Protein backbone atom coordinates (compact mmCIF):
# COMPACT_ATOMS: atom_id res chain seq x y z
CA UNK A 1 0.00 0.00 0.00
CA UNK A 2 1.21 3.51 -0.77
CA UNK A 3 -0.06 4.75 2.60
CA UNK A 4 2.90 7.06 3.05
CA UNK A 5 2.02 9.06 -0.07
CA UNK A 6 -1.74 9.11 0.30
CA UNK A 7 -3.10 11.83 2.64
CA UNK A 8 -5.32 10.51 5.43
CA UNK A 9 -8.32 12.51 4.22
CA UNK A 10 -8.75 13.74 0.65
CA UNK A 11 -11.91 15.51 -0.50
CA UNK A 12 -12.51 16.55 -4.10
CA UNK A 13 -15.45 18.56 -5.39
CA UNK A 14 -17.72 17.48 -2.54
CA UNK A 15 -21.34 18.49 -2.93
CA UNK A 16 -24.09 17.36 -0.59
CA UNK A 17 -27.78 18.16 -0.73
CA UNK A 18 -30.27 17.06 1.90
CA UNK A 19 -33.42 15.49 0.43
CA UNK A 20 -31.70 15.60 -2.97
CA UNK A 21 -34.05 15.16 -5.90
CA UNK A 22 -37.15 16.31 -4.03
CA UNK A 23 -38.79 19.72 -4.00
CA UNK A 24 -37.48 20.19 -0.47
CA UNK A 25 -33.84 19.87 -1.51
CA UNK A 26 -31.47 21.78 0.80
CA UNK A 27 -27.91 22.22 -0.45
CA UNK A 28 -25.50 21.87 2.49
CA UNK A 29 -22.07 21.53 0.90
CA UNK A 30 -21.22 23.19 -2.42
CA UNK A 31 -17.89 22.09 -3.81
CA UNK A 32 -15.37 21.39 -1.07
CA UNK A 33 -11.74 20.51 -1.89
CA UNK A 34 -9.70 19.64 1.14
CA UNK A 35 -6.73 17.56 2.20
CA UNK A 36 -5.89 16.62 5.78
CA UNK A 37 -2.67 14.75 6.53
CA UNK A 38 -2.00 12.21 9.23
CA UNK A 39 -1.11 13.79 12.58
CA UNK A 40 -2.77 17.15 11.94
CA UNK A 41 -4.98 18.93 14.50
CA UNK A 42 -7.60 20.86 12.55
CA UNK A 43 -10.43 23.10 13.75
CA UNK A 44 -13.57 23.47 11.68
CA UNK A 45 -15.29 26.81 12.23
CA UNK A 46 -18.48 28.27 10.83
CA UNK A 47 -21.83 29.69 11.86
CA UNK A 48 -24.76 27.36 12.51
CA UNK A 49 -25.89 25.81 9.24
CA UNK A 50 -22.57 26.42 7.49
CA UNK A 51 -22.07 22.69 6.89
CA UNK A 52 -19.58 21.68 9.61
CA UNK A 53 -21.50 18.65 10.82
CA UNK A 54 -22.41 17.61 7.28
CA UNK A 55 -18.73 17.72 6.28
CA UNK A 56 -17.67 15.67 9.33
CA UNK A 57 -20.33 13.05 8.59
CA UNK A 58 -18.76 12.55 5.16
CA UNK A 59 -15.41 11.70 6.74
CA UNK A 60 -16.65 8.40 8.16
CA UNK A 61 -19.25 7.60 5.53
CA UNK A 62 -22.30 8.41 7.66
CA UNK A 63 -23.21 10.53 4.64
CA UNK A 64 -22.17 9.86 1.06
CA UNK A 65 -21.51 12.73 -1.39
CA UNK A 66 -24.24 13.86 -3.79
CA UNK A 67 -21.35 14.70 -6.12
CA UNK A 68 -17.58 14.52 -5.74
CA UNK A 69 -15.51 12.04 -3.74
CA UNK A 70 -14.06 11.50 -0.29
CA UNK A 71 -11.06 9.23 0.22
CA UNK A 72 -10.03 8.04 3.68
CA UNK A 73 -6.52 6.56 3.65
CA UNK A 74 -7.06 5.81 -0.02
CA UNK A 75 -10.49 4.18 0.35
CA UNK A 76 -13.35 5.91 -1.41
CA UNK A 77 -16.23 6.25 1.06
CA UNK A 78 -18.66 5.28 -1.71
CA UNK A 79 -17.12 1.80 -1.78
CA UNK A 80 -19.33 -0.24 0.56
CA UNK A 81 -16.74 -3.04 0.81
CA UNK A 82 -14.43 -0.67 2.69
CA UNK A 83 -17.11 0.76 4.99
CA UNK A 84 -15.64 -0.96 8.06
CA UNK A 85 -12.12 0.18 7.15
CA UNK A 86 -13.29 3.77 6.77
CA UNK A 87 -15.22 3.78 10.05
CA UNK A 88 -12.44 2.14 12.05
CA UNK A 89 -9.89 4.57 10.61
CA UNK A 90 -12.03 7.58 11.53
CA UNK A 91 -13.81 7.63 14.90
CA UNK A 92 -16.54 10.13 15.70
CA UNK A 93 -17.61 11.90 18.89
CA UNK A 94 -20.98 13.65 18.74
CA UNK A 95 -22.36 16.71 20.47
CA UNK A 96 -25.00 15.23 22.79
CA UNK A 97 -23.29 13.18 25.51
CA UNK A 98 -26.25 10.96 26.40
CA UNK A 99 -27.49 9.75 23.06
CA UNK A 100 -24.20 8.27 21.84
CA UNK A 101 -23.85 5.82 24.72
CA UNK A 102 -25.25 2.43 23.77
CA UNK A 103 -24.66 0.22 26.80
CA UNK A 104 -25.75 0.58 30.40
CA UNK A 105 -22.29 -0.13 31.81
CA UNK A 106 -19.18 1.97 31.06
CA UNK A 107 -16.84 -0.84 29.97
CA UNK A 108 -19.52 -2.49 27.83
CA UNK A 109 -20.11 0.75 25.98
CA UNK A 110 -16.40 1.00 25.17
CA UNK A 111 -16.54 -2.57 23.91
CA UNK A 112 -19.46 -1.89 21.55
CA UNK A 113 -17.29 -0.80 18.60
CA UNK A 114 -14.69 -3.60 18.74
CA UNK A 115 -17.48 -6.13 19.40
CA UNK A 116 -19.00 -5.06 16.10
CA UNK A 117 -15.62 -5.64 14.46
CA UNK A 118 -15.52 -9.18 15.82
CA UNK A 119 -12.34 -8.65 17.86
CA UNK A 120 -11.54 -11.82 19.84
CA UNK A 121 -12.25 -11.82 23.57
CA UNK A 122 -8.71 -11.43 24.95
CA UNK A 123 -7.85 -8.52 22.70
CA UNK A 124 -11.27 -6.99 23.34
CA UNK A 125 -10.51 -6.79 27.06
CA UNK A 126 -7.08 -5.27 26.37
CA UNK A 127 -8.54 -2.65 24.05
CA UNK A 128 -11.25 -1.67 26.54
CA UNK A 129 -8.76 -1.35 29.40
CA UNK A 130 -6.38 0.66 27.25
CA UNK A 131 -9.07 3.01 25.93
CA UNK A 132 -10.49 3.62 29.42
CA UNK A 133 -7.07 4.35 30.91
CA UNK A 134 -6.26 6.71 28.00
CA UNK A 135 -9.29 8.87 28.81
CA UNK A 136 -8.71 8.31 32.57
CA UNK A 137 -11.99 6.56 33.33
CA UNK A 138 -10.51 3.24 34.49
CA UNK A 139 -11.90 3.51 38.03
CA UNK A 140 -15.42 3.94 36.66
CA UNK A 141 -15.41 0.92 34.36
CA UNK A 142 -18.22 -0.90 36.18
CA UNK A 143 -20.32 2.25 36.77
CA UNK A 144 -23.75 2.68 35.18
CA UNK A 145 -23.20 4.90 32.16
CA UNK A 146 -26.15 7.20 32.89
CA UNK A 147 -24.66 8.17 36.25
CA UNK A 148 -21.54 9.79 34.72
CA UNK A 149 -21.15 13.57 34.44
CA UNK A 150 -21.49 15.15 30.99
CA UNK A 151 -17.70 15.54 30.72
CA UNK A 152 -17.14 11.91 31.71
CA UNK A 153 -19.74 10.82 29.16
CA UNK A 154 -17.88 12.64 26.39
CA UNK A 155 -14.60 11.04 27.46
CA UNK A 156 -16.41 7.70 27.45
CA UNK A 157 -17.48 8.46 23.87
CA UNK A 158 -13.83 9.11 22.98
CA UNK A 159 -12.86 5.81 24.62
CA UNK A 160 -15.55 4.08 22.55
CA UNK A 161 -14.00 5.48 19.39
CA UNK A 162 -10.42 4.77 20.55
CA UNK A 163 -11.20 1.11 21.20
CA UNK A 164 -11.54 0.67 17.43
CA UNK A 165 -7.91 1.90 17.08
CA UNK A 166 -8.69 4.80 14.75
CA UNK A 167 -6.05 7.02 13.14
CA UNK A 168 -8.32 10.04 13.22
CA UNK A 169 -10.89 11.45 15.66
CA UNK A 170 -13.73 13.70 14.57
CA UNK A 171 -15.26 15.89 17.28
CA UNK A 172 -18.62 17.34 16.29
CA UNK A 173 -18.97 20.20 18.79
CA UNK A 174 -18.09 17.65 21.43
CA UNK A 175 -17.40 20.32 24.06
CA UNK A 176 -20.54 22.39 23.41
CA UNK A 177 -22.63 20.92 26.23
CA UNK A 178 -19.87 20.71 28.85
CA UNK A 179 -19.08 22.89 31.84
CA UNK A 180 -15.62 24.57 31.96
CA UNK A 181 -14.01 21.72 33.93
CA UNK A 182 -15.45 19.04 31.64
CA UNK A 183 -14.35 21.01 28.59
CA UNK A 184 -10.80 21.47 29.91
CA UNK A 185 -10.43 17.77 30.73
CA UNK A 186 -11.78 16.77 27.31
CA UNK A 187 -9.37 19.13 25.53
CA UNK A 188 -6.47 17.82 27.63
CA UNK A 189 -7.36 14.28 26.60
CA UNK A 190 -7.58 15.27 22.93
CA UNK A 191 -4.28 17.17 23.24
CA UNK A 192 -2.51 14.08 24.62
CA UNK A 193 -3.94 11.94 21.84
CA UNK A 194 -2.74 14.41 19.23
CA UNK A 195 0.75 14.42 20.76
CA UNK A 196 0.77 10.66 20.40
CA UNK A 197 0.09 11.01 16.69
CA UNK A 198 -3.70 11.07 16.43
CA UNK A 199 -5.21 13.17 13.67
CA UNK A 200 -7.98 15.36 15.09
CA UNK A 201 -10.68 17.28 13.24
CA UNK A 202 -12.83 19.31 15.63
CA UNK A 203 -15.91 21.33 14.69
CA UNK A 204 -16.39 24.00 17.35
CA UNK A 205 -17.84 27.39 18.22
CA UNK A 206 -15.21 27.93 20.89
CA UNK A 207 -12.41 30.17 19.60
CA UNK A 208 -10.05 29.43 22.48
CA UNK A 209 -10.33 25.78 21.49
CA UNK A 210 -9.65 26.61 17.83
CA UNK A 211 -6.56 28.61 18.83
CA UNK A 212 -5.00 25.36 20.17
CA UNK A 213 -5.03 23.69 16.75
CA UNK A 214 -2.54 23.75 13.87
CA UNK A 215 -4.93 24.68 11.10
CA UNK A 216 -8.31 26.37 10.96
CA UNK A 217 -10.83 25.74 8.23
CA UNK A 218 -13.72 28.19 8.03
CA UNK A 219 -16.92 27.12 6.30
CA UNK A 220 -19.61 29.49 5.12
CA UNK A 221 -22.79 28.43 3.37
CA UNK A 222 -21.32 25.13 2.36
CA UNK A 223 -18.08 26.45 0.95
CA UNK A 224 -14.53 26.88 2.20
CA UNK A 225 -14.27 30.54 3.20
CA UNK A 226 -10.85 30.67 4.86
CA UNK A 227 -8.07 28.26 5.62
CA UNK A 228 -4.78 28.67 7.42
CA UNK A 229 -2.85 28.72 10.70
CA UNK A 230 -4.81 30.10 13.67
CA UNK A 231 -2.59 33.21 13.85
CA UNK A 232 -3.22 34.07 10.21
CA UNK A 233 -6.95 33.38 10.44
CA UNK A 234 -7.59 35.29 13.65
CA UNK A 235 -5.76 38.36 12.33
CA UNK A 236 -8.64 38.86 9.88
CA UNK A 237 -11.11 40.06 12.47
CA UNK A 238 -13.40 41.93 10.06
CA UNK A 239 -13.63 39.01 7.64
CA UNK A 240 -14.47 36.67 10.51
CA UNK A 241 -17.14 39.04 11.85
CA UNK A 242 -18.72 39.13 8.39
CA UNK A 243 -18.87 35.32 8.58
CA UNK A 244 -20.63 35.58 11.99
CA UNK A 245 -17.56 34.34 13.83
CA UNK A 246 -15.61 35.60 16.82
CA UNK A 247 -11.91 35.77 17.60
CA UNK A 248 -10.24 34.64 20.86
CA UNK A 249 -10.41 37.23 23.63
CA UNK A 250 -6.59 37.52 24.01
CA UNK A 251 -6.38 38.40 20.29
CA UNK A 252 -8.94 41.16 20.70
CA UNK A 253 -7.17 42.56 23.73
CA UNK A 254 -3.77 42.42 22.01
CA UNK A 255 -5.20 44.31 19.06
CA UNK A 256 -6.65 47.03 21.27
CA UNK A 257 -3.30 47.34 23.07
CA UNK A 258 -1.28 47.52 19.86
CA UNK A 259 -3.53 50.30 18.58
CA UNK A 260 -2.74 52.35 21.68
CA UNK A 261 0.78 51.27 22.57
CA UNK A 262 3.56 51.52 20.02
CA UNK A 263 5.27 48.25 19.21
CA UNK A 264 2.88 45.98 21.10
CA UNK A 265 2.26 42.80 19.03
CA UNK A 266 -1.27 42.47 17.62
CA UNK A 267 -1.27 38.82 16.58
CA UNK A 268 -1.48 37.02 19.92
CA UNK A 269 -3.68 33.96 20.42
CA UNK A 270 -3.51 32.72 23.98
CA UNK A 271 -3.53 34.18 27.49
CA UNK A 272 0.04 32.91 27.94
CA UNK A 273 1.30 34.79 24.89
CA UNK A 274 -0.50 37.94 26.00
CA UNK A 275 0.98 37.73 29.50
CA UNK A 276 4.49 37.26 28.07
CA UNK A 277 4.07 40.25 25.77
CA UNK A 278 2.85 42.47 28.59
CA UNK A 279 5.69 41.34 30.83
CA UNK A 280 8.25 42.06 28.08
CA UNK A 281 6.72 45.44 27.47
CA UNK A 282 6.85 46.34 31.16
CA UNK A 283 10.55 45.52 31.02
CA UNK A 284 10.54 42.45 33.21
CA UNK A 285 12.10 39.23 32.01
CA UNK A 286 9.43 36.96 30.61
CA UNK A 287 8.27 34.40 33.12
CA UNK A 288 9.63 36.22 36.16
CA UNK A 289 6.14 36.97 37.37
CA UNK A 290 5.37 33.30 37.77
Amino acid sequence: MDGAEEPLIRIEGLHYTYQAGTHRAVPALCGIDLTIHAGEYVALLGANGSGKSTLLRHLNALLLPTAGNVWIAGWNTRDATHLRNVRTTVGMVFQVPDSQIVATVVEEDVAFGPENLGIPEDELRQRVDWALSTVRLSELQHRASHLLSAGQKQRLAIAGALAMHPRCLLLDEATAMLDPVGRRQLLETVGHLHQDGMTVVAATHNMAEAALTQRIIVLSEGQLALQGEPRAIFSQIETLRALHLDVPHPTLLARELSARVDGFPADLLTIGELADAVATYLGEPAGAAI
Partner: protein
Amino acid sequence: MPMASEFELLGRVTIGQYLPTGSLVHSLDPRAKLLVVLLLIIVVIVSNSLIGLSLLLLAVLAGLAVARIPLRFALAGLRPMLPFLILLALLQVFAIPQYSIGATVIWHRGILTITDRSLLAGILLIARFSIMALGLSLFSFSTTTTELTHGIEHLVRPLQTLRLPAHEFALVVNIAIRFLPILAEETERLMKAQASRGADFGRGRRNFVQRTRLLLPLLVPLFLVSLRRADQLIEAMEARCYLGGKGRTHLIRLQERLPDYVVVAGALGLATGAIYLSRVNADRLLWSWLSSHL
Protein backbone atom coordinates in the same frame (compact mmCIF):
# COMPACT_ATOMS: atom_id res chain seq x y z
CA MET B 1 -38.59 20.27 49.76
CA PRO B 2 -41.81 18.48 48.88
CA MET B 3 -42.32 20.70 45.80
CA ALA B 4 -39.16 19.56 44.06
CA SER B 5 -39.98 15.89 44.38
CA GLU B 6 -43.01 16.28 42.12
CA PHE B 7 -40.71 16.42 39.10
CA GLU B 8 -37.99 14.03 40.16
CA LEU B 9 -38.89 11.10 37.98
CA LEU B 10 -35.39 9.65 37.83
CA GLY B 11 -35.58 8.72 41.50
CA ARG B 12 -38.78 6.79 40.86
CA VAL B 13 -37.48 4.72 37.97
CA THR B 14 -36.69 1.49 39.72
CA ILE B 15 -36.70 -1.34 37.29
CA GLY B 16 -34.98 -3.92 39.36
CA GLN B 17 -35.27 -3.01 43.02
CA TYR B 18 -31.94 -4.62 43.79
CA LEU B 19 -31.28 -5.35 47.44
CA PRO B 20 -27.61 -6.23 47.88
CA THR B 21 -27.45 -8.79 50.67
CA GLY B 22 -24.69 -10.80 49.01
CA SER B 23 -26.50 -14.09 49.45
CA LEU B 24 -26.15 -17.32 47.49
CA VAL B 25 -29.23 -16.38 45.46
CA HIS B 26 -27.59 -13.09 44.47
CA SER B 27 -24.46 -14.83 43.25
CA LEU B 28 -26.33 -17.27 41.02
CA ASP B 29 -25.92 -16.98 37.27
CA PRO B 30 -28.68 -14.65 35.95
CA ARG B 31 -29.46 -17.23 33.27
CA ALA B 32 -30.23 -19.82 35.93
CA LYS B 33 -32.48 -17.38 37.77
CA LEU B 34 -34.26 -16.38 34.55
CA LEU B 35 -34.89 -20.02 33.70
CA VAL B 36 -36.22 -20.78 37.16
CA VAL B 37 -38.56 -17.76 37.09
CA LEU B 38 -39.79 -18.74 33.63
CA LEU B 39 -40.39 -22.29 34.82
CA LEU B 40 -42.18 -21.03 37.94
CA ILE B 41 -44.58 -18.91 35.88
CA ILE B 42 -45.38 -21.78 33.52
CA VAL B 43 -45.95 -24.31 36.30
CA VAL B 44 -48.04 -21.92 38.37
CA ILE B 45 -50.32 -21.45 35.37
CA VAL B 46 -50.43 -25.11 34.34
CA SER B 47 -50.76 -26.80 37.71
CA ASN B 48 -54.27 -27.11 39.22
CA SER B 49 -53.15 -28.85 42.37
CA LEU B 50 -53.33 -26.97 45.67
CA ILE B 51 -50.73 -29.34 47.08
CA GLY B 52 -48.42 -28.59 44.14
CA LEU B 53 -48.91 -24.85 44.49
CA SER B 54 -48.25 -25.06 48.22
CA LEU B 55 -44.96 -26.79 47.48
CA LEU B 56 -44.04 -23.99 45.05
CA LEU B 57 -45.02 -21.35 47.62
CA LEU B 58 -42.79 -23.07 50.20
CA ALA B 59 -39.93 -23.15 47.68
CA VAL B 60 -40.29 -19.43 46.90
CA LEU B 61 -40.45 -18.58 50.62
CA ALA B 62 -37.34 -20.69 51.17
CA GLY B 63 -35.66 -18.77 48.34
CA LEU B 64 -36.57 -15.46 49.98
CA ALA B 65 -35.14 -16.71 53.27
CA VAL B 66 -31.89 -17.84 51.65
CA ALA B 67 -31.64 -14.51 49.80
CA ARG B 68 -32.15 -12.75 53.18
CA ILE B 69 -34.93 -10.60 51.73
CA PRO B 70 -37.44 -9.52 54.42
CA LEU B 71 -40.89 -10.89 53.70
CA ARG B 72 -42.54 -7.47 54.06
CA PHE B 73 -40.31 -6.18 51.20
CA ALA B 74 -41.42 -9.01 48.96
CA LEU B 75 -45.08 -8.57 49.95
CA ALA B 76 -44.94 -4.82 49.26
CA GLY B 77 -45.14 -5.56 45.54
CA LEU B 78 -48.30 -7.55 46.11
CA ARG B 79 -50.17 -4.84 48.03
CA PRO B 80 -51.23 -2.55 45.12
CA MET B 81 -52.65 -5.58 43.29
CA LEU B 82 -54.64 -6.77 46.29
CA PRO B 83 -58.00 -5.02 45.54
CA PHE B 84 -58.00 -6.37 41.97
CA LEU B 85 -57.00 -9.79 43.20
CA ILE B 86 -59.84 -9.94 45.71
CA LEU B 87 -62.31 -8.71 43.09
CA LEU B 88 -61.15 -11.34 40.61
CA ALA B 89 -61.32 -14.04 43.26
CA LEU B 90 -64.88 -13.02 44.21
CA LEU B 91 -65.87 -13.16 40.53
CA GLN B 92 -64.43 -16.65 40.33
CA VAL B 93 -66.32 -17.75 43.42
CA PHE B 94 -69.73 -16.24 42.63
CA ALA B 95 -70.05 -15.32 38.97
CA ILE B 96 -68.75 -18.16 36.81
CA PRO B 97 -71.73 -20.43 36.01
CA GLN B 98 -69.58 -23.38 34.84
CA TYR B 99 -68.34 -23.90 38.38
CA SER B 100 -71.86 -24.47 39.72
CA ILE B 101 -72.99 -27.10 37.19
CA GLY B 102 -72.76 -30.53 38.74
CA ALA B 103 -70.77 -29.31 41.72
CA THR B 104 -71.48 -29.68 45.41
CA VAL B 105 -73.12 -26.61 46.92
CA ILE B 106 -71.38 -25.55 50.10
CA TRP B 107 -73.27 -22.37 50.90
CA HIS B 108 -76.36 -20.73 49.40
CA ARG B 109 -78.28 -17.52 50.12
CA GLY B 110 -80.49 -15.68 47.61
CA ILE B 111 -78.66 -15.46 44.28
CA LEU B 112 -75.27 -16.12 45.86
CA THR B 113 -73.99 -19.67 45.71
CA ILE B 114 -70.62 -21.11 46.65
CA THR B 115 -69.79 -24.55 45.32
CA ASP B 116 -66.71 -26.63 46.07
CA ARG B 117 -65.43 -25.97 42.54
CA SER B 118 -65.91 -22.21 42.62
CA LEU B 119 -64.27 -21.96 46.03
CA LEU B 120 -61.30 -23.94 44.76
CA ALA B 121 -61.03 -21.67 41.67
CA GLY B 122 -60.95 -18.58 43.91
CA ILE B 123 -58.29 -20.03 46.17
CA LEU B 124 -56.21 -21.18 43.19
CA LEU B 125 -56.34 -17.69 41.67
CA ILE B 126 -55.06 -16.02 44.82
CA ALA B 127 -52.40 -18.69 45.29
CA ARG B 128 -51.18 -18.34 41.68
CA PHE B 129 -50.88 -14.56 41.84
CA SER B 130 -49.16 -14.58 45.21
CA ILE B 131 -46.59 -17.17 44.14
CA MET B 132 -45.84 -15.31 40.91
CA ALA B 133 -45.53 -11.95 42.66
CA LEU B 134 -43.26 -13.37 45.35
CA GLY B 135 -41.16 -15.21 42.78
CA LEU B 136 -40.72 -12.11 40.64
CA SER B 137 -39.86 -10.09 43.76
CA LEU B 138 -37.24 -12.65 44.69
CA PHE B 139 -35.78 -12.35 41.19
CA SER B 140 -35.77 -8.57 41.01
CA PHE B 141 -34.46 -8.10 44.56
CA SER B 142 -31.52 -10.40 43.85
CA THR B 143 -30.64 -9.45 40.25
CA THR B 144 -29.24 -6.15 38.97
CA THR B 145 -30.45 -4.64 35.71
CA THR B 146 -27.09 -5.36 34.15
CA GLU B 147 -27.23 -9.02 35.16
CA LEU B 148 -30.75 -9.16 33.75
CA THR B 149 -29.65 -7.87 30.32
CA HIS B 150 -26.61 -10.15 30.30
CA GLY B 151 -28.82 -13.08 31.22
CA ILE B 152 -31.35 -12.36 28.47
CA GLU B 153 -28.59 -11.83 25.91
CA HIS B 154 -26.87 -15.10 26.75
CA LEU B 155 -30.11 -17.07 26.94
CA VAL B 156 -31.39 -15.99 23.54
CA ARG B 157 -28.00 -16.23 21.79
CA PRO B 158 -28.40 -19.91 20.83
CA LEU B 159 -31.66 -19.02 19.06
CA GLN B 160 -29.56 -17.11 16.53
CA THR B 161 -28.63 -20.41 14.91
CA LEU B 162 -32.36 -21.00 14.28
CA ARG B 163 -32.29 -17.71 12.30
CA LEU B 164 -34.41 -15.99 14.93
CA PRO B 165 -33.55 -12.30 15.54
CA ALA B 166 -32.04 -13.13 18.93
CA HIS B 167 -29.31 -10.48 18.85
CA GLU B 168 -31.79 -7.79 17.85
CA PHE B 169 -34.10 -8.81 20.70
CA ALA B 170 -31.27 -8.58 23.23
CA LEU B 171 -30.17 -5.22 21.82
CA VAL B 172 -33.71 -3.84 22.02
CA VAL B 173 -33.99 -4.87 25.68
CA ASN B 174 -30.60 -3.34 26.41
CA ILE B 175 -31.37 -0.04 24.68
CA ALA B 176 -34.83 0.18 26.25
CA ILE B 177 -33.22 -0.07 29.67
CA ARG B 178 -30.50 2.36 28.62
CA PHE B 179 -33.14 4.89 27.47
CA LEU B 180 -35.29 4.80 30.63
CA PRO B 181 -33.18 7.31 32.59
CA ILE B 182 -32.84 9.51 29.47
CA LEU B 183 -36.59 9.63 28.96
CA ALA B 184 -37.20 10.21 32.67
CA GLU B 185 -34.84 13.17 32.49
CA GLU B 186 -36.52 14.55 29.36
CA THR B 187 -39.97 14.18 30.91
CA GLU B 188 -38.76 16.01 33.99
CA ARG B 189 -37.44 18.82 31.80
CA LEU B 190 -40.70 19.06 29.83
CA MET B 191 -42.84 19.03 32.98
CA LYS B 192 -40.77 21.80 34.53
CA ALA B 193 -40.91 23.86 31.34
CA GLN B 194 -44.68 23.49 31.12
CA ALA B 195 -45.21 24.02 34.85
CA SER B 196 -43.20 27.26 34.67
CA ARG B 197 -45.75 28.46 32.13
CA GLY B 198 -48.68 27.59 34.35
CA ALA B 199 -49.39 23.95 33.54
CA ASP B 200 -50.81 21.99 36.45
CA PHE B 201 -49.84 18.37 36.83
CA GLY B 202 -52.59 17.53 39.26
CA ARG B 203 -51.55 18.24 42.77
CA GLY B 204 -54.35 17.90 45.24
CA ARG B 205 -57.51 15.86 45.05
CA ARG B 206 -58.03 14.64 41.53
CA ASN B 207 -58.94 11.18 40.43
CA PHE B 208 -56.83 8.92 38.29
CA VAL B 209 -58.53 9.81 34.98
CA GLN B 210 -58.20 13.55 35.56
CA ARG B 211 -54.55 13.23 36.45
CA THR B 212 -53.87 11.12 33.39
CA ARG B 213 -55.58 13.66 31.14
CA LEU B 214 -53.31 16.39 32.55
CA LEU B 215 -50.30 14.43 31.32
CA LEU B 216 -51.51 14.37 27.69
CA PRO B 217 -49.74 17.63 26.68
CA LEU B 218 -46.48 15.87 27.61
CA LEU B 219 -46.98 12.99 25.22
CA VAL B 220 -46.41 14.67 21.86
CA PRO B 221 -43.20 16.51 22.80
CA LEU B 222 -41.92 13.42 24.60
CA PHE B 223 -42.58 11.35 21.51
CA LEU B 224 -40.67 13.82 19.33
CA VAL B 225 -37.77 13.91 21.77
CA SER B 226 -37.58 10.11 21.78
CA LEU B 227 -37.49 9.99 18.00
CA ARG B 228 -34.69 12.56 17.88
CA ARG B 229 -32.73 10.67 20.55
CA ALA B 230 -33.21 7.43 18.65
CA ASP B 231 -31.93 9.08 15.47
CA GLN B 232 -28.80 10.28 17.24
CA LEU B 233 -28.23 6.88 18.80
CA ILE B 234 -28.50 5.15 15.42
CA GLU B 235 -25.91 7.53 13.99
CA ALA B 236 -23.57 6.89 16.91
CA MET B 237 -24.00 3.13 16.53
CA GLU B 238 -23.29 3.27 12.80
CA ALA B 239 -20.22 5.40 13.40
CA ARG B 240 -18.96 2.56 15.60
CA CYS B 241 -19.34 0.02 12.81
CA TYR B 242 -22.66 -1.47 13.89
CA LEU B 243 -23.89 -3.48 10.91
CA GLY B 244 -26.18 -5.95 12.66
CA GLY B 245 -25.38 -8.88 14.89
CA LYS B 246 -23.40 -10.88 12.38
CA GLY B 247 -19.83 -11.62 13.40
CA ARG B 248 -20.02 -9.74 16.69
CA THR B 249 -17.93 -10.84 19.66
CA HIS B 250 -18.76 -10.21 23.30
CA LEU B 251 -16.84 -8.62 26.15
CA ILE B 252 -18.95 -10.24 28.86
CA ARG B 253 -19.01 -14.00 29.19
CA LEU B 254 -21.21 -15.47 31.89
CA GLN B 255 -19.68 -18.45 33.68
CA GLU B 256 -22.08 -21.05 35.04
CA ARG B 257 -21.02 -22.96 38.17
CA LEU B 258 -22.20 -25.98 40.12
CA PRO B 259 -24.84 -24.15 42.27
CA ASP B 260 -26.47 -22.88 39.07
CA TYR B 261 -26.92 -26.44 37.77
CA VAL B 262 -28.18 -27.60 41.17
CA VAL B 263 -30.77 -24.82 41.35
CA VAL B 264 -32.03 -25.37 37.80
CA ALA B 265 -32.19 -29.14 38.35
CA GLY B 266 -34.06 -28.63 41.63
CA ALA B 267 -36.51 -26.29 39.95
CA LEU B 268 -37.07 -28.78 37.16
CA GLY B 269 -37.76 -31.52 39.69
CA LEU B 270 -40.18 -29.37 41.63
CA ALA B 271 -41.94 -28.30 38.44
CA THR B 272 -42.37 -31.88 37.28
CA GLY B 273 -43.70 -32.80 40.71
CA ALA B 274 -46.25 -29.96 40.77
CA ILE B 275 -47.50 -30.81 37.29
CA TYR B 276 -47.64 -34.54 38.14
CA LEU B 277 -49.68 -33.84 41.29
CA SER B 278 -52.08 -31.85 39.17
CA ARG B 279 -52.37 -34.58 36.52
CA VAL B 280 -53.16 -37.37 39.01
CA ASN B 281 -55.69 -35.19 40.82
CA ALA B 282 -53.73 -35.42 44.04
CA ASP B 283 -55.97 -32.93 45.81
CA ARG B 284 -59.04 -35.14 45.37
CA LEU B 285 -57.13 -38.27 46.39
CA LEU B 286 -55.91 -36.54 49.54
CA TRP B 287 -59.42 -35.25 50.25
CA SER B 288 -61.09 -38.65 49.91
CA TRP B 289 -58.33 -40.29 51.95
CA LEU B 290 -58.77 -37.69 54.68
CA SER B 291 -62.59 -37.96 54.71
CA SER B 292 -62.53 -41.76 54.86
CA HIS B 293 -59.91 -41.96 57.64
CA LEU B 294 -61.03 -39.12 59.91
